[in-house]
């Protein structure tokens, strides 16, 4: 290769660098990761007002009445999902949640085994700007306890009848027995 050939190659490499650099200036961000922003005051207010979660009974009601645009998302592992999942649920693991597509009109309900992972997913989606996101506070454990095998009184009240009907709709088996006092039941549900 002569000196002229070398110089020609260098010039073309320089032109290539200029073209790529000019393209870079207008191409946007090369990072793949999504960047979200959190308004911590808004999030704190939402949590304080308990607008961040649904109960298992509320979710069961939404599913039974086929409420429009509700997507129930199971963030657990594939094995756990295959063993048992809430009817109509789809599995999106926590790591893929931020790259999943959700329409602005959809109501998203996340659940995990207990509730912690779903709550973390709730923060991710809120940070990405999704407004209608909830998590199942007590997770699948609450679903199994409150929907699939709820305790109803030996002398059923109207509320017990509604609970039994809801449970039976999902194939559950209401248990006869003493219901835990309301305060105890609420504290137990919060234990996630």
């Amino acid at each position, binding site marked *: 290769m002569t000196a002229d050939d070398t110089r020609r190659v260098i010039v073309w490499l320089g032109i290539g*660098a200029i073209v790529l650099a000019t393209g870079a200036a207008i191409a946007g961000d090369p990072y793949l990761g999504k960047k979200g922003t959190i308004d911590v005051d808004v999030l704190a207010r939402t949590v304080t007002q308990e607008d961040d979660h649904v109960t298992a009974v509320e979710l069961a009601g939404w599913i039974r009445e086929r409420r429009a645009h509700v997507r129930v998302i199971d963030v657990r592992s594939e094995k756990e999902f295959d063993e048992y999942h809430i009817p109509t649920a789809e599995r999106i693991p926590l790591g893929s949640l931020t790259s999943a597509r959700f329409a602005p009109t959809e109501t998203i309900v996340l659940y995990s085994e207990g509730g912690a992972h779903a709550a973390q997913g709730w923060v991710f989606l809120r940070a990405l700007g999704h407004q209608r996101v909830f998590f199942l506070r007590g997770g699948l454990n609450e679903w199994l306890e409150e929907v699939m095998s709820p305790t109803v009184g030996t002398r059923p009240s109207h509320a017990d009848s509604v609970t039994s009907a809801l449970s039976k709709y999902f194939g559950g088996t209401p248990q006869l027995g003493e219901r835990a006092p309301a305060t105890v039941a609420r504290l137990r549900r919060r234990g996630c």
Partner: protein
Amino acid sequence: MRAPLYELGAFGNTAALFVAVLIGVAFGWCLERAGMGSARKLAGQFYFTDLTVFKVMFSAIVTAMLGAFWLGRIGWLDLSRVYVPETFAVPQLVGGLVFGVGFVVGGLCPGTSCVAAATGRGDGMMLVAGMFSGAIASGLGFRTLEPLYSSTPLGTLTLPQALHLPYGVVVALVVLVALGGFRGAEWIESRVNARAS
């Protein structure tokens, strides 16, 4: 296939070490072919008679930067998984000063001293011996050095963050500076060498 390959589990520790050796050999071979194993050539940098080091190193920076940017942009490289060393202002300034003095005194930098040693040059071997001795001495005296070592931490700082400019704009600016630098280096070399002859 997505990169970084090791970070994303494309291969394990053993394969990663094997690939590292291959890349190291390729890097050394390229440095040697570019004449970087010669202290005489490298010393030309400080007399402005031969600015090859500047041109090779800046070319490498520009090539890697454009490659990383565009691979990231088309989705083949997850830049968030690429490790960025943390900035510690004062210890890195001191380290840079030591590096620069060593470069001027020895005529070789760490990478090129390995190339020189591998090609059987005595000066390269002495520099490699000195480098390892220095590393061992720093390790043994680390408790004394630690306050300096961990002082003035600035976290993982990149040019776009420091300049508050978009990543792509910084890429374009660095390329323009590099091309201007190459042109300037050629001009300086021709002026200095013409005066010497």
